[in-house]
C-alpha cells in the first residue's frame, strides 16, 4: 500500500464532511493526531503527516506547529522527507519566522549534495523564502554553482542569484562575472536564467549596465538564431521558437538600448526583422511582437521602425482576440503623447473599440479617444463620445463627462457648439458631472451674449421636458431668471421661438420649487430666478410676490432667508418715497405705489413744520406731453403746523408711450403764501 494513500484518505474524509462544523471536527482530530505523531520518534510517517498538515493549511486552518517538523524533515537524509520538508518550509515559513534561520545550515549542506535533485530543492527553497541574511551567507555557494555545475543546476542557481540580488543589491557585484560567461551557454534554460539575471543586475547598477552594453551584438545574434531557426520540437510554441527566451532577450535589449544611440543602432535591424517575420496568429507570437513594440518605442530607434511598431499596434486593434486589443490600447496610451500623429492614424479603429463588449477595453478606448482629441477632429470625435456617453457603463460616466468638458473647453469650434455640447451632456448624464459644471456653464452663457436668446430657449424647452437632472435645472432656472424677457418676447434668430406667457414661465419655475426631486440648491436657484423675473415681467408681479412670501416660512433655512430678504426688497421698492420739495418748513414727499409699463400711481404727502397752519394748498404738476395726468382730490386743504398732520393726494399717470418717468418729472409750482 503506497504511503500517500493515507493522505488521500484524509482528504476524502474532509471533503465528505457535510457541514463546516463537521469539517472542523475532522480536521481537529487529524491535527491532534499529527501533533502526537510529531512528538514521537521517527517512524517513517513524518512526511505524510506533514503533507496532511499542509493540506489542512491550504484549507485555511492554522498549521504553525508544523514549522519545526519542516526543519527536522529538511535535515533528514531521505529524499522524500526532504522534499516534503522543503515544501513545508516554503508554505509555512517565511523570512519573518525565526524558524527559517534554522534551515540555513541544511540548505548550505544540500547545495553541495551529490544528488542534483537535492541541490534543486535547496535552490528552490532559497529562491522562494531566503532572507537577506541567508542570502549573504550563501551567496558564495551560489556563485560557485553558477560557474561549475551542470545545466540543470546552473539555470536554478541563476534564478537563485536573481532572488539574492533583489534581497541584497550589493551582491550584484559578486555575480556579474559569472553572469557574463553564462551568455555563451547553449542550453535554453541556462540562457533564460542568465538573461533574467543580467537584466536584474543592469536595472540596479548603471556601471553594470554600461558593461553589458558590450554584449548587445551577442544578444542580437542569439535572438536572430531563435527567429531564423527552423522548427525545434523542444522549444516550439505555436510556431515560435522559445517565446519565453525571446521575450526576455527583447526586454534586456530594451534596457541596454535606452538612451544610448550606439546600442540602439546595433539592434535596429534585428527589431525590424522580428517585427516583420513573427507570426502573430497565436498568443505566443503576439507576445513576442508586443515585447518588440515596447522595445522599439523605448530605445532610440529610427522613425521608420517606430512607424512600423505603431502599425503593429494598429493591427492588434483589429485582432479578434480581446486580450490583444486590450494590450494594444495600453501600449498606444503610453505613446500617444510622443507619437501623436502615428496614433492618430488609427483613431477610427480606436473609436470603434468604444463599442466593445468588454468593460476594460471600453475604458482603454475612452482614455485613448480623449487623448486623441484635437482642433481638427473635435466635431466628429465629440459625436462619437456623446454617443458613447448615452450607453456607457455607470462606472465610466463621471470620467467621460469630465473628459468631454475638458476637450470641449480646449477645442470648441464655436460658442454655440460649446453650449450645445454641454447641454447635451447634462441631458444625457447630468447626474454624473462635477459640481463646477454649473457655475462654469453659467459663465460660458454669460459671455456668449449673442446667444442669450438661443440659450434661454433651449434651456426652457429642456426644463419643461424633465426636471430631474439637478445641474440642468439649476442652469435653466438661472437662465430664465436672467433672460426671461427674451423668452417672453417670442422671437429668436437661432432657433424656433416658443410662444409662452408669463404664467407659463412662472408655472415652470414653481414646478421646480414644489417638486420633491429638486434639491435645496435647485430650489434656491428657482426662487432667485422667480424674484429676478419681477423686474422683467409686467402682469404677474403679484403672483411672484405671493410665491416668494410663501417661502418666508419654509423649513429650509436658506430658502427662508432668501424669501424674507426678497420680500423686504419688494416692500422697500414699493414704499420708496422721495422728497421733491423742502423749503421754509414745508416738505413734500412723492411715493410710487404701483408701476407698470404704461403707468404709475403716485402719492404726494405734504407736511408742515412751521408755526402756522398752511391753508389753500393747491398742487400743479407738469409732465411730458405724451403723459396724461389725473390728480385725485387731496385728503384735506389744511396742513397742520408743527408737523402734527399731513395731506395726501393721489396722482395717476398714464404713460402709453412708455416714456421714462422719474420722480423729479413732477414739479410742484404752488406753495402757500402765508408762510411768512
Amino acid at each position, binding site marked *: *500500500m503506497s*504511503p*500517500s494513500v*493515507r*493522505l*488521500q484518505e484524509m482528504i*476524502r474524509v474532509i*471533503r465528505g464532511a457535510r457541514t463546516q462544523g463537521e469539517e472542523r471536527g475532522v480536521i481537529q482530530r487529524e491535527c491532534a*493526531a499529527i501533533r502526537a*505523531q510529531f512528538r514521537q520518534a521517527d*517512524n*517513517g*510517517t513524518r512526511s*505524510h503527516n506533514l*503533507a496532511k498538515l*499542509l*493540506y489542512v493549511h*491550504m484549507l*485555511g486552518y492554522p498549521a504553525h506547529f508544523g514549522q519545526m517538523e519542516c526543519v527536522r524533515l529538511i535535515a533528514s537524509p*531521505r*529524499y*522524500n522527507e526532504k*522534499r*516534503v520538508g522543503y*515544501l513545508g518550509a516554503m508554505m509555512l515559513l517565511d523570512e*519573518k519566522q525565526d524558524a527559517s534561520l534554522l534551515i540555513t545550515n541544511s540548505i548550505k549542506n544540500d547545495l553541495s549534495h551529490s*544528488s542534483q*535533485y537535492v541541490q*534543486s530543492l535547496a*535552490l528552490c527553497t532559497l529562491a*522562494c523564502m531566503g532572507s537577506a541574511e541567508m542570502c549573504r551567507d550563501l551567496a558564495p555557494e551560489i556563485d560557485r554553482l553558477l560557474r561549475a555545475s551542470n545545466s540543470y543546476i546552473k539555470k*536554478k542557481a541563476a*534564478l*537563485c542569484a*536573481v*532572488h539574492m540580488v533583489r534581497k541584497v543589491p550589493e551582491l550584484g557585484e559578486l555575480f556579474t562575472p559569472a553572469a557574463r560567461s553564462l551568455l555563451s551557454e547553449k542550453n*535554453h*534554460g541556462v540562457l*533564460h*536564467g542568465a538573461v533574467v539575471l543580467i537584466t536584474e543586475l543592469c536595472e540596479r547598477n548603471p556601471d553594470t549596465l554600461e558593461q553589458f552594453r558590450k554584449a548587445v551584438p551577442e544578444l542580437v545574434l542569439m535572438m536572430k538564431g531563435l527567429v531564423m531557426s527552423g522548427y525545434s520540437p*523542444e522549444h516550439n*510554441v505555436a510556431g515560435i521558437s*522559445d*517565446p*519565453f527566451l525571446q*521575450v526576455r532577450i527583447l526586454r534586456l535589449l530594451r534596457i541596454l538600448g535606452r538612451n544610448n544611440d550606439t546600442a540602439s543602432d546595433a539592434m535596429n535591424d534585428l527589431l525590424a526583422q522580428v517585427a516583420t517575420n513573427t507570426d502573430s496568429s497565436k*498568443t*505566443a507570437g503576439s*507576445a513576442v511582437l*508586443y*515585447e518588440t513594440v515596447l522595445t522599439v518605442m523605448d530605445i532610440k530607434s529610427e522613425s521608420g521602425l517606430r512607424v512600423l511598431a505603431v502599425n503593429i499596434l494598429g493591427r492588434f486593434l483589429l485582432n479578434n482576440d*480581446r*486580450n*490583444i*486589443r*486590450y*494590450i494594444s490600447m495600453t501600449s498606444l496610451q503610453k505613446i500617444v503623447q510622443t507619437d501623436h500623429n502615428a496614433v492618430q492614424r488609427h483613431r477610427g479603429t480606436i473609436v470603434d473599440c468604444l463599442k466593445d463588449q*468588454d468593460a*476594460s*477595453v471600453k475604458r482603454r478606448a475612452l482614455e485613448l479617444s480623449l487623448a486623441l482629441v484635437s482642433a481638427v477632429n473635435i466635431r466628429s470625435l465629440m459625436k462619437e463620445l456623446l454617443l458613447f456617453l448615452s450607453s456607457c457603463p455607470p462606472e465610466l460616466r463621471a470620467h467621460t463627462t469630465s473628459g468631454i468638458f475638458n476637450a470641449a473647453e480646449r477645442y470648441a469650434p464655436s460658442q454655440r457648439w460649446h453650449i450645445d455640447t454641454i447641454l447635451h451632456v447634462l441631458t444625457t448624464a447630468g447626474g454624473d458631472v462635477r459640481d463646477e459644471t454649473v457655475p462654469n456653464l453659467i459663465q460660458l452663457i454669460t459671455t456668449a451674449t449673442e446667444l442669450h436668446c438661443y440659450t434661454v430657449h433651449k434651456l426652457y424647452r429642456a426644463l419643461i421636458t424633465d426636471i430631474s437632472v439637478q445641474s440642468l435645472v439649476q442652469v435653466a432656472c438661472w437662465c430664465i431668471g436672467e433672460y426671461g424677457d427674451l423668452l417672453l418676447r417670442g422671437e429668436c434668430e437661432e432657433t424656433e421661438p416658443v410662444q409662452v406667457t408669463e404664467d407659463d414661465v412662472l408655472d415652470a419655475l414653481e414646478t421646480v420649487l414644489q417638486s420633491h426631486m429638486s434639491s435645496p440648491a435647485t430650489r434656491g436657484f428657482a426662487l432667485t430666478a422667480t424674484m429676478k423675473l419681477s423686474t422683467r415681467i409686467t402682469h404677474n408681479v403679484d403672483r411672484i410676490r405671493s410665491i416668494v412670501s410663501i417661502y418666508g416660512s419654509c423649513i429650509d433655512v436658506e430658502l427662508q432667508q432668501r424669501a424674507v430678504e426678497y420680500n423686504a426688497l419688494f416692500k422697500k421698492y414699493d414704499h420708496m418715497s422721495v422728497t421733491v420739495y423742502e423749503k421754509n418748513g414745508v416738505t413734500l414727499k412723492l411715493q410710487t405705489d404701483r408701476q407698470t409699463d404704461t403707468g404709475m400711481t403716485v402719492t404726494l404727502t405734504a407736511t408742515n413744520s412751521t408755526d402756522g397752519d398752511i391753508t389753500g394748498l393747491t398742487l400743479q404738476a407738469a409732465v411730458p406731453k405724451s403723459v396724461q395726468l389725473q390728480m385725485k382730490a387731496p385728503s384735506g386743504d389744511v396742513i397742520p403746523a408743527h408737523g402734527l398732520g399731513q395731506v395726501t393726494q393721489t396722482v395717476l399717470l398714464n404713460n402709453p408711450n412708455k416714456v421714462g418717468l422719474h420722480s423729479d418729472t413732477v414739479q410742484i409750482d404752488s406753495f402757500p403764501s402765508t408762510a411768512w
Partner: protein
Amino acid sequence: MMHFLLLFSRQGKLRLQKWFTPVPEREKKKIVRDMTTMVLGRKPRSCNFLHWKDLKIVYKKYASLYFCCGLDAEENELLALEVLHRYVELLDKYFGNVCELDIIFNFEKAYFILDEFLLGGEVQETSKQVLSRSIEASDMLQEAEIDNSDYDLELGWP
C-alpha cells in the same frame, strides 16, 4: 517577476497557492479573497487582464479551475498567459487528462511540478521535454527510496 500564483475553483475554493514574496498570513488570506472575488465576478467573454493595486493580474479558466497570477507592472501579459498554459500542459502530461480532483488529491505533486517550472517567480526551464524528464526523475528517486526503506506502516497512526 510573478508575485503569486493561485488556483481556485468556481466556488472560490483554493486548490494551490504559491507565494514568491514574503507576505504575512493575514495578508495572504486577503489577497486570495480579493482575487477570487475579482476573477469570479468577471463576465464570460472579458479579457484576461486586470489591475489590482500596482500589480497586473492575469487569469485563465481551464475546465473548473481558475489559474490566477499577480505580476509586476513591466511584465508581458501575453507571455504570462503562455506561462499559465505551459503549467497546465505539464500537469496534463503528468496526470494524463488532468482534472481538478487530481490536483486536490495530489496537491503536493502539483507543487513539485510547479517548482520545476518556476523558481523565484521566474521561468526556469523553457523545454517541455526537459521539464517532464526532471519531474519523472525526481519521482523515480522518491519511489526508489520508498522501495528500499524498511519502515513499517503498521507503526503509524491508523
